[in-house]
């Protein structure tokens, strides 16, 4: 079930270059949220809402955390909102990560840039189920790195940067051989990263979270479709996704 809710901003702070962490309070949305879902946020009077992933959820405190990067007019404006103000939000939207993994299994999280946020809530939820977590997080450069400590709290965490200014130099796919065996992977990040990753990990059980420009965010407008791999159908990212089985869709 989706609702249009007012979410109170509990805090907002910069956590990396152009990157903000915002904690939002709302009972309904925090109660329902599962990892991989997102919020559709009304910013000012913009015609279209902005989709932002749920990066964490504290069900006791009725809090949702979002992490966002300034990417244009909407996110710039969002960064100016202050604690105490309210955001008009549709949510929680989309289908989350299936996360039907068994206790004791090992799963790999692979995040790139602003694809990192949804993996944190996922990792936290999996860890609570007794699953082992290994994370690879890729960023452009040192100033962009965020949430390293939080992911280390979940398990082994490898950071890579494009230019080597922090952690390993290169792409997330370059360090895959440094992690041991894993049962399933979950990933979110830019399309080229997802392409490289799913190609390298072909045959492995895996799930990816995708982005597309959206209209309604609820499945009514057909703005955010992508074709299924077999070519006979399509999926709506906002409703059927944003998380898909790596073999399900064409990216």
């Amino acid at each position: 079930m989706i609702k249009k809710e007012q979410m109170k901003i509990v805090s907002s702070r910069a956590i990396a270059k152009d990157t903000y962490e915002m904690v939002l309070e709302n009972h309904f949305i925090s109660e329902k949220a599962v990892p991989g879902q997102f919020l559709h946020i009304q910013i000012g009077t913009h015609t279209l809402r902005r989709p932002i992933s749920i990066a964490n959820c504290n069900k006791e405190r009725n809090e949702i955390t979002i992490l966002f990067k300034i990417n244009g007019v909407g996110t710039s404006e969002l960064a100016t909102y202050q604690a105490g103000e309210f955001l008009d939000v549709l949510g929680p939207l989309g289908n989350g990560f299936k996360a039907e993994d068994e206790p004791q299994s090992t799963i790999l999280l692979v995040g790139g840039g602003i694809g990192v946020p949804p993996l944190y809530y996922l990792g936290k939820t999996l860890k609570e189920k007794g699953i082992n977590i290994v994370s690879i997080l890729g960023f452009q450069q040192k100033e962009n790195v965020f949430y390293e400590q939080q992911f280390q709290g979940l398990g082994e965490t490898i950071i890579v940067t494009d230019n080597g200014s922090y952690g390993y130099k290169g792409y997330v796919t370059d360090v895959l051989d440094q992690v041991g065996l894993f049962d399933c992977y979950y990933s979110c990040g830019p399309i080229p990263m997802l392409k490289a990753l799913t190609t390298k990990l072909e045959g492995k059980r895996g799930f990816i979270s995708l982005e597309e420009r959206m209209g309604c965010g609820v499945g009514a407008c057909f703005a955010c479709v992508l074709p299924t791999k077999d070519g006979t159908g399509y999926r709506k990212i906002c409703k059927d996704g944003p998380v898909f089985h790596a073999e399900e869709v064409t990216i």
Partner: protein
Amino acid sequence: MTDLAIELPGLSLKNPIMPASGCFGFGREYSEFYDLSKLGAVIMKAATGSERFGNPTPRVAETASGMLNAIGLQNPGVNKIIESEVPFLSQFDTNIIANIAGSTLEEYEEVARAFNKTDKVHALELNISCPNVKDGGIQFGTNPSMAARVTEAVKKASNLPVYVKLSPNVTDIMQMAKAVEAAGADGLSMINTITGMQIHLPSRRPLIANKTGGLSGPAIKPVAIRMIYEVRQQVNIPIIGMGGIQNAEDVLEFLLAGASAVAVGTANFQNPFICSEIIDELPSVLSNYDFNSVQEAVGKGIIS
């Protein structure tokens, strides 16, 4: 009590508010927000002869007080719509209007004929103006004699009232309106989107994969009002008005310009409850401006 009801060919509307085609799917998603029985009618997403997958993504972009879209008529095809979507919508106590599209005259006829199979649909909205499909669509919408031909053909094929949806991308909207009226249209729907483009600076290419898209939202309201105002004085058939409606005051502006009912499109994306909220606000807005009914306001802004 302010009377919101309005009678149009084939449509006994309890109020003049309906979601616009393409902005409300087939009602399923928005039915989770409120009871669709509240609506005057629902205009369904365009139906074509067979399933269409539409254009590549990105399909939408934001503009100043508006948006561009190039969905490209994605839909499951008319038969699937009749089988799976119409029954869902017909649970609600509202009118159903089917928006029909095609690439050829024959496809339009086929789709129109298909809707004769169900008695749950109350009217057709003949979309001759979708700017986002290359083959067909737009030629019918910009050439008066082509528009008349497809209107005539659809009128023959269907036993439902036909509202022809006009494109604003023309030099002379009055000529288009008169041509389809003469060809038998029972009403007009106006306006569809204005063709526009946005260029994405980092990639140096049109943001919408289809290059151009249709501009909708408050940005186009002055164009819609002008065209309805002009056409209202030239034809005798009723007009369903649309283009940028966001609140009950906007609805009144469309009524004054000559629309008998209105459709709300883009605004659903910002606020899923928009149609419901407008229906709640309309009575007091009408009475603030000294109208006792919707009917009374229709065309009252026209001075000669």
